[in-house]
């Protein structure tokens, strides 16, 4: 079994829920992906109950697309956590730490990380340690030289320059998602400048480096990249810590 399992969550009540339950119980990180339309829902008393205090934020959001994405993300989080924890999604409460890290009240040990780009939503869940996820559409261009200089270490810029020109855009998007996933996992987001750490990629894995291109030691993190074809093509990267214990196996 892979340490990180990618699952399409096609709406409440799907077969994906059993996969989430098994993956979390067995100590694997599970990465759910879906399209906003698969999880959006109109406002209703049931939705208000599910959102709890967040319903105020939902009601004050003007743009319909933002509202749909908000509802879809909250429904995805609560139904996925419900599958992982074996409780009703209506009883779970989502909270946000001062650094911006989301957690379920009382269940801070169920790490979760949400990402969205275009119509894609991604949710990573882990019961064994810190987790972060990020996604980007492959149609997005990030090979702007100024951006590359601002985001990449010297070693990463050298690795990008060594690639055929046609592959650089995809490689840069992958680096970006790895950096976002890592900073989300440690709960700091872009407050940690992306040029202050780097990655060397190898297959679907990546290794964390310092700014000199030296691998970080000891190896505490696992990084994985997936490629998804949905309404568009996307790259999704996850970061998770290696844990000596496993809560759900206790």
């Amino acid at each position, binding site marked *: 079994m892979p340490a990180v399992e990618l699952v399409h969550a096609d709406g409440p009540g799907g077969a994906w829920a059993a996969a989430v339950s098994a993956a979390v119980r067995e100590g694997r990180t599970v990465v759910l992906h879906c399209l906003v339309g698969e999880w959006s829902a109109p406002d209703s008393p049931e939705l208000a109950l599910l959102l709890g205090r967040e319903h105020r934020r939902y009601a004050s959001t003007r743009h319909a697309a933002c509202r749909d994405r908000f509802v879809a993300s909250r429904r995805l989080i609560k139904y996925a956590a419900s599958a992982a924890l074996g409780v009703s999604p209506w009883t*779970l*409460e989502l909270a946000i730490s001062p650094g911006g890290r989301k957690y379920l009240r009382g*269940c801070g040990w169920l790490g979760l990380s949400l990402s969205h780009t275009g119509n894609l939503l991604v949710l990573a869940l882990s019961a064994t340690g810190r987790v972060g996820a990020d996604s980007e559409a492959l149609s997005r261009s990030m090979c702007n030289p100024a951006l590359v200089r601002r985001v990449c270490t010297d070693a990463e810029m050298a690795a990008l320059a060594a690639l055929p020109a046609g592959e650089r855009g995809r490689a840069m998007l992958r680096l970006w998602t790895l950096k976002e996933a890592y900073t989300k996992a440690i709960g700091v987001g872009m407050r*940690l400048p992306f040029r202050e750490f780097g990655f060397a990629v190898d297959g679907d894995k990546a290794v964390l480096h*310092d700014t000199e291109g030296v691998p970080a030691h000891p190896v505490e993190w696992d990084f994985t990249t997936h490629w998804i074809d949905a309404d568009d093509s996307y790259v999704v990267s996850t970061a998770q810590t290696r844990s000596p214990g496993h809560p759900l196996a206790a």
Partner: protein
Amino acid sequence: MKASPTPERLLAHADAALRSAMAAAADRTPPRLAKAAAGAAYLDLWVCERLLRADGGSRSASARFLVPRLLMEGVDGLTVLLGTELHRATRPSAEYRRRARLLGEAMWHPDHEERLMGVVERLSLPLYGDDRLSRPMTSVRPAALPTALHRMLDDLERERRQLIDDCALSEDSATARDWARADRYALLTAAAACVDDWERRKGYRQHRFADLTRLVGALSRLAVRLDREPAGPDAELSGALFDEADLYCRTSSVVVRTARSAARQLVGV
């Protein structure tokens, strides 16, 4: 199964992580966000120390439940202060990473359910008598409080009353709603511990501006965790808390090994 570290032990890890991060960043002037991260970690350390001191030390159910998460979040935030030093093989950076890893292991220790249930069980009885949350957040008249603190305490008091109402209405069988109440209960107990400390110190010396900045900053971080608004301008960003954290780290050359000694240094006694 190896026992999880006590909250006091975790306080010592967070203390060492803060000192290590400050030492690693000592050669440069930290940018604004890095200063804010140090101030935030210092505040979380202070809140946890207050909670431990006020709520029965390592026997406190709220502390056993809350301290691992609060300290891990604060210490993780120090990565912003470390910046390029984060993954270097220098002694302070390696020590920071070791302490951060130990805090993460405590957070995901298999006894997490037992820690949660300790607080849930406390909430199965009405909040009265010795329970700190049976009393208002402060006994000080609103007019006697600085505006930022008054607003913040007003908000936290509303949260306390809502928690009492929610507990009274809770169902007989346990649900995940009890988990959320436990989280709010622990956060409010920590807030009350900070307020009580501030009021007690008021008795024997004049308020210093630093005391107020620290209290409002600490309560702001707890308020955000309770879905409430932080007070006024972000106290963490003021730079004052970075200076206080810096002074705290500089005034002791002795490695803090117990929370008790950490506590003495934190409150300056």
